[in-house]
Every structure is written in C-alpha cells, then in structure tokens.
C-alpha cells in the first residue's frame, strides 16, 4: 500500500509518484497567514493506493468556522476510509440519486464524533475576551466546517470505474485522451459545506456525486484542487512540475491567497493486446 497524508503544519512541495496504473502529482501549500508557528493550514490532502484502487480526498476547512482545519482533517480521514470500505457497494449500485442520499447519511453519522473533537479543543489561555467570545460562538453555532471532494478510481477491471463525491468549491476536473474537459454537471457552491455541528443539513446544503467509466468516456486524467488554485484552474492541465510549483509560489504571494491542495492523476493507457498490438 502506498499513500500520503498532508501534515497541516507543513508544506509538501510538488511530488510525483509512479503507480502501476497511473502517475500522480500532488502538492500541499499553506497560505501566507497560515505560516506562523502556531497556526495550521486549513486544507487536508490525502491519497491511498491499495488493491488496485486509488482513493483520494481534498478538504478545504472553512476559515470562518471554528478551527476549519479540524473538520478538514477529520472528515478527510473518514472519507478516505469510506471510499475503500463503501466504494464497492456504490460501484455495484451505479450513480443514482440514492447515492447522494446515502452519502449524506454517512456524512451525518460522522457529525457527533467530529463535534466531540471540536468540544475538546482548549483555547489558548492568553486569547483576548472578544476573540474567545467570537470562537465560542463559532464552536456553538457552526462547529468546524469543511468543503471536500473525495474520489475512488477502481483499476481492478478494464473499465476503470471512477466515483466522485463532493460538497463546496473544491474542484475536480476530468479530461479525455484529446485533453478535452468532460462536463460532469458539477456545481461548486460554497454554501455546500459539511460541519461538525450540522452535518450536511444546514441551509439546504447538498452532496453531489458522479460515477463513470474511464474506458467508456476515454478519461485519461483527473485533477482536483482547493480554492487556492481556483483562479488559475484553466492553466493547471498544461503545466509541468516546475511550472506547477512556481504557480503555487506565485499564488501564495497574492493578497487573496488561500491554502493550496493539488492532485493530478494521469491514467496509463492499457498495454495493447490482440491482433492490433505492435511489437
């Protein structure tokens, strides 16, 4: 088994990994105002490859909630486990409205444990009263909130089934062999958030799902990223490793910089077999 989990207190420069069925590139970088010794990035990025399945998660903790990094890391771990444990059932069922409902059920079931983590956070003793009031109100009213995209790429069959699950504006893009981006009917609404206090039930928040066959749709590539890269989304597929790293550095200098999580999965073409195979 191979994998990666971001440390929210530490950046990960662009890494490349060769796996049997795909090549992975990933990067984790904290925004300028998350780089003090006592603060942590609000994003969480993780992937795992086991038994011919690649699971990944990109979470973007909401800054204006109570310690968004807590929800990001907690939910990230839950989702990563989920795509391996529940993923096979989903693949068998196909992409139906019931899938989103079922996902919402799981997401809500993790709420209590998440809120327990939030309740156990002891605020630093030296915080001013106004800030304590602000944080306690967030803890009580919202809990810790995060947006996310989680995915499962099943390489066990020639079809390579891809299942995606998301809430919020963490983006995922799919590209076919010609480099054309596939429309997956995605909406990226920041109002769609998961919180330790409310689960997915706050103000009409929705869980979105997508499932498709890489073989059928000629999918060759998947890119997922948090909003630190949103403004340069169109450029990402064209960039080599150095350029991605440079772009991340540039983005972090911008006034509106946000944490960046980036994952780029390139599927390897199956070895040609049969009468058309070339020597």
């Amino acid at each position: 088994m191979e994998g990666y989990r971001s440390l929210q207190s530490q950046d990960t420069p662009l890494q490349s990994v060769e796996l049997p069925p795909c090549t992975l590139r990933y990067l984790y970088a904290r925004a300028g105002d998350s780089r003090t010794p006592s603060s942590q990035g609000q994003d969480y990025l993780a992937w795992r490859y086991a038994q011919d399945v690649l699971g990944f998660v990109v979470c973007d903790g909401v800054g204006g909630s109570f310690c968004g990094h807590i929800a990001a890391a907690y939910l990230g771990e839950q989702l990563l486990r989920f795509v391996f444990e529940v993923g096979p059932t989903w693949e068998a069922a196909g992409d139906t409205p019931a899938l989103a409902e079922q996902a919402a059920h799981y997401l809500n079931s993790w709420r209590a444990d998440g809120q327990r983590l939030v309740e156990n956070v002891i605020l630093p003793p030296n915080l001013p009263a106004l800030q304590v009031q602000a944080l306690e109100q967030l803890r009580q009213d919202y809990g810790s909130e995060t947006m996310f995209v989680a995915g499962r790429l099943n390489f066990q069959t020639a079809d390579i089934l891809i299942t995606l699950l998301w809430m919020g504006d963490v983006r995922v893009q799919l590209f076919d062999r010609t480099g054309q981006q596939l429309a997956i009917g995605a909406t990226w609404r920041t109002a769609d958030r998961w919180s330790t206090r409310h689960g997915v039930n706050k103000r009409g928040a929705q869980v979105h799902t997508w499932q498709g066959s890489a073989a059928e749709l000629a999918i060759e590539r998947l890119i997922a990223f948090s909003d630190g890269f949103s403004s340069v989304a169109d450029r990402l597929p064209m960039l080599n490793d150095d350029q991605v790293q440079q772009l991340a550095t540039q983005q972090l200098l911008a006034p509106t910089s946000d944490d960046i999580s980036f994952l780029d999965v390139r599927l390897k073409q199956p070895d040609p077999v049969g009468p058309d195979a070339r020597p």
Partner: protein
Amino acid sequence: MPYNVLATSKTPALIIYLLDVSASMNQDCGGRTRIDVVSHALQKVAVKMVQRSTKGTIVAPRYRVAMYAYSSQVIDLLDGIKPIDELARMGVPRLTTLDMTDTAAAFAQAERLLQAELPNLQDCPAPLICHMTDGEYNGADPTPIAQRIMAMGVPDGQVLIENIYVKAGAMSISDINTWPGILSEDELSDNYSKTLLRMSSVVPESYRSVMYEFGYQLSPGARMFFPGDQPEIVELGFTMSGATPVTA
C-alpha cells in the same frame, strides 16, 4: 462600481464608525437605553469581524477600524485606526452619553481621515462609514460633507456611507430577516429620515450576498439606511458595516 475586492490581511477593509452619544441616547429603545442597544450591536459586529478574520485561533487583520463618538465634540475612541486583531485585544470601548449632536463635525473628521488614508487604499475594498444617530443635528448641515465623501473612492468603488437612525416610530418591521430594506424616500415620513437616506449609499451586490448569508434578504437597490428604534434594526445596521466580502 463592483465592490468586489476582498478584505484580506494585505488589502484590509477600512470601516469608520461615527457614533452619536448625545444625551437623548439615554432614551428607551425596546426596554433598554439606546446607547445600550448600540453598544451591544457594536460588540456583536466586532465579534462578527473577528470571526470573519479568523483562521484556527489566529485573527488576520482583514479589517481596520476607526471609531469616533460625537456630541458637541468628536472623540477618537480608539486613538487612531486599529486593525481588527488589535481591536480584539483592546475590546470595544464603552460608550457614555454627553450633550449635543454636532453631526457635521463627525463627518468632517471622517473626511480628513479618508483624505489621509485613500492614497494607501488603492488595492483595498472601498472604505465604509457607519453613522449612527438618534436625532437631528445641532450646528451645521452634514449633507455637503457626506456628499463630498461619497464622491471619494478607490478602484473598488466610491466610499460607502450607511446611516442607522435610532428614532421612535420611524419604521415598524415585523420580520427583520425578510425586510427588503428602504428603496425610496416615499417610504419615509419625516424630513430628517429623507436627508439621511440621501446620505446613504445603495447596498452593493457583494454586500447584499454577504447579508443573505447572515440571514437578511435585502432587495436589490436597497439603501444603506436603517431607521427605527427596534433593536433588531440597529443590529442589522451594524451587521452591514462588517459585510465586506472576505475569502471563505
């Protein structure tokens, strides 16, 4: 004007409060004194600004705040402009009532501050003045100064002015969360309300979206004018002052 520049540590929003502390602020407002209602609303918006500036337990200086109380003279409550993280450390100053209502002097103070600050705010959100009063001015008419201020601006937009008019019977709102706001003078009965309305900017779309997230449903074209002595209206007015868009 777009009013789309986000308030960040590098491009903070400047919010200037002009607070009438004349003696009439001791009058009743929903079972409390007006000054108590305003102090409470001010505390709530300070908390909201801190929340909107917080990552983890770190407060990023996304807002810069100046606060002037005025009566027959103008008092600088914060001793200059303070970043929100510093205001969080200082706490919101306590308001006490004095005597007269020299509104023009307060606006003149804001104009001087803006003249000094605007050259440094070219990449920042348009500044906002939040004026709260409970009665007509003594002394000079503040309108010409307010109009000069509304003509000042940065690339993000002209300086915004909002007015909170704590006046008994000015308006009765049954549900503050669905109230569409004031759209025209025809909705107002007294002359000073109309004067203040003319000194009030239209709510920018970006602010309207943020207010929607806060649970308010102001209509497009609503003005930044909040008349009435219901504590909910006062609170809505102060909430507006902290609604500069920020990153999630």
